[in-house]
């Protein structure tokens, strides 16, 4: 029997629903999840323990996703963690803004298991054995 290795991930979104959806998908694929409801909470969580993946909403109270991202990269450098920005705004400049602020990838809301895991495999974070075409 192999010991399951979990990938620590932080889900940052002001919506409980989105956090829960993301948690369900990610936990199913061997991530261990912490949640934060805004950028400030996320910074605190990162300071406590550095995750490998941050799934980040853009529009949040207190501190938005872009600001969080800038501070994250300012403080910890640009290599870790991998940040996937969630966005509902299809506009190119919004996506670019996130990527310029240091996001590695973006995913459009609403996402489902296939979409999200597909994106994660692009940034090399999909755990082994994941087949995006397999029924969720």
């Amino acid at each position, binding site marked *: 029997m192999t010991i399951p290795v979990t990938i620590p991930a932080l889900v940052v979104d002001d919506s*409980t629903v*989105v956090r829960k*959806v993301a948690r369900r998908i990610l936990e199913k694929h061997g991530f261990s999840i912490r949640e934060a409801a805004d950028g400030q909470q996320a910074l605190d969580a990162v300071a406590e323990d550095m995750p490998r993946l941050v799934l980040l909403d853009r529009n949040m109270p207190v501190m938005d996703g872009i600001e969080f991202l800038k501070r994250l990269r300012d403080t910890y450098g640009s290599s870790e963690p991998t940040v996937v920005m969630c966005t509902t705004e299809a506009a190119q400049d919004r996506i670019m803004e996130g990527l310029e602020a240091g996001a590695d990838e973006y995913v459009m809301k609403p996402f489902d298991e296939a979409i999200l895991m597909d994106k994660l495999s692009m940034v090399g974070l999909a755990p082994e054995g994941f087949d995006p075409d397999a029924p969720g």
Partner: protein
Amino acid sequence: MDDLLADFLTETNEGLQSLDGALLSLERNPDDPAVLAEVFRTIHTIKGTCGFLGLPRLEKVAHAAENVLGRWREGSLPVTAAGISLILRAVDRIKAIVAGLESAGAEPAGDDAEMIALLDAAFRGEEVAVDGPAAPPQAEAPAPVAAVAEPEPAPAAAAPQPAAAAQPPAQPTEAGPGNAPQTIRVAVDVLEDLMVLVSELVLTRNQLMQLARTETNSAFSVPLQRLSQITSDLQDGVMKTRMQPIGSAWQKLPRLVRDLSHDLGKKIILEQHGAETELDRQVMELIKDPLTHMVRNSADHGLEGPEERRAAGKPETGRITLNAYHEGGHIVMEIGDDGRGLSTARISEKVIRQGLATEAEIASMSEQEIHRFIFRPGFSTAAAITSVSGRGVGMDVVKTNLERIGGIVELRSREGRGTTFTIKIPLTLAIAAALIVESAGERFAIPQNSVLELVRVGDGDGPKIEMIKSTPVMRLRDRLLPLVNLSRLLALQDQPVAAGGSSFVVVSQVGSQVFGIMVDRVFDTEEIVVKPVAPILRDVTMFSGNTILGDGSVIMILDPNGIARGTGLGVETNGEAAATLTAATRSAESRDHTAVLLFRAGEGAPKAVPLGLIARLEDLPAERIEQAGDSLVVQYRGSLMPLIPLSGYGAVMPAPGSKQAVLVFGDGAHSMGLMVDEILDVMETQLVIDGAGARQGFLGSSVIADKVTEVLDCAYWLHQGGADWFSATAKAKEVTRKPRVLLVEDSSFFRNLVVPALSAAGYAITGLPNPREALRLREAGEMFDIILSDINMPEMDGLQFVRAIRDGGPWQELPVIALSAQAEPDDVEAGREAGFTDYVAKYDRDALIGALTQAIELQVFARSIDSPV
């Protein structure tokens, strides 16, 4: 019901609840970016979440509304009243769908095409008629515009909300039909109209009463009495329709306290009394932040940890109590804890050390008076900075915020027993207490909350109005107070004020700026109904509104902010509008005006020195001036003050019987006088200094009032005259190593102001023109105890600089104080987020030294914790 859906309903209802208020305040301030961002985010979140749950109807409406809000937010479409009504209707539709979702577990059937078409039209920038025949498909009230008197959650519902994740799936439907208290939705416009009509009625009633007073035994007197009573009741009734229970401002606190108790390792329970107490929703929005701050403070500083409590014989669980009740036209709110209370000894010690009061003064103060020092800017007795209460922003900000809406805050504390803060705020901002004054035969109202004191000036012994050239000033308790001549400012009459004439001065405070408004007469304080300024007068910033007095006359309400700005007193007024730092920065740039004193000394051009550097202006009789060796001195406030001649001819004794004009620099203990020939004027100007060809003792020349003027290099002159004084001060402080201070400031002028002021106060100071050079010093291994930085600098500004410091490296933990022309709470917050430890106004020497002392003490303290001896 799926628990995801339950979560969605909980958070959507929460968001929707705050939305009405936000939209209404948006209507009043259409370009408030903070409110706009909040509204956008709420709708955006609803839309974003719908997709996950498969709620197409909701998603479409929210999406269309979001589009319109998005254009508002980016400024490509103006916010109009019609637009807001449309969004409010869309919000109502969203509420209706959510209500259906809540009761049936699925979206109710319905057609939103018309609503979406309207929103899309608005998005394209077309004019939209909102009160058109759009038939609401739901069982909504006709043409709802805003929710008023909504069924509020009972006090119990305002109490602890379990963490959303642990929410039971069956969420009780608050807004469900049948079980809710009987309410209807009424357009806010209707309420506002009612309010206006009632005000008119009150005025008419007052007029009638005044007429009736002259007639005794009139047959009208009894019905008039009745009319009067009914009118008052009606006014109360209409006021009530704008009210909301305070409980909705408390909703977030249980969660906050829960999280804090977890973070701090303390056991805390939060008790709420009087959550049903009502107040104007506009006021409520404004007190939410101060309230949160105070509860944080209670949890963090007030309450002890479980062990300490056990040791003190108290129950392990600390208690924070919120209590609200009405008193007169005010709502009183108490935030109390049963913690350790304020330490009078520690506050006294700090007060004395910071030089805010002498030991003798402290001895004569009551405990309560000493406690009030915690409301002073930058004052904090917390031994260490904790992550919870943050740094720098303290009770002074709470106090300022409350005072801005006419509130007061008091505190009661007993050591070992706990602290209770009492906040008293007006129930509404629609009615305010104002001082009625007269100038040039016109009456004006000045809001009571910006009046510090009233001073009668006249021929007697009291304060007098003096003229520095054409600018009136008044000496009030050692302070040179600029005065505003109201009748001149408003062009009521053009006759110049006669110095020494008899009148009143209303001493007002705007931000940290204190000034006097000269008026002819003072009548009384009255409760006035504030009416907005007519649009045609909106550009006249001197007025904040108008009101109608009991005798029927219409008078203008003065806006002390606008007056200070109108006279160029250099007052910053960003207020709520400057929610973003960029806005604040911009306004700071446009405000870079400095008040300078113009004078003549010796040959050549007039000279200038920033007014803020001068402690006092004196006309010393020649008899008081004494010769001491080569120099002149004067006995001044119990010590000898050296007098330095500026004329360049050495120290020449003035002729007997004549008077010598002296600019006094320095504080109470140490001072130095510069002898000048004549004081010319006080002016507000943008100091652009040309350093080319500057003589010794001068920074350079500047064109002021079309004349080339030499600007004094204070550093040079202070060193010239005060050699003894400097070394004496320095010696006193040299018992310990001099604290090393790094100053980063692009303007050589201000560098030259701050450097001597601080070296005089015993600091070893290094001044640099930009952050890059400062960072080079860091690379070179230089170390300082504290860093002062300007905010506005080219290339790299202060915020970027402080982020670079916090980024890592040997300076990472250093206190960094922002120096800026403005210090509004918003800016303080923005600066703090970037990593600044404290925020100090640029010209406020005392505050700067206070902040330095405090920051260095904290650092020493922190080090003593870090490295156990």
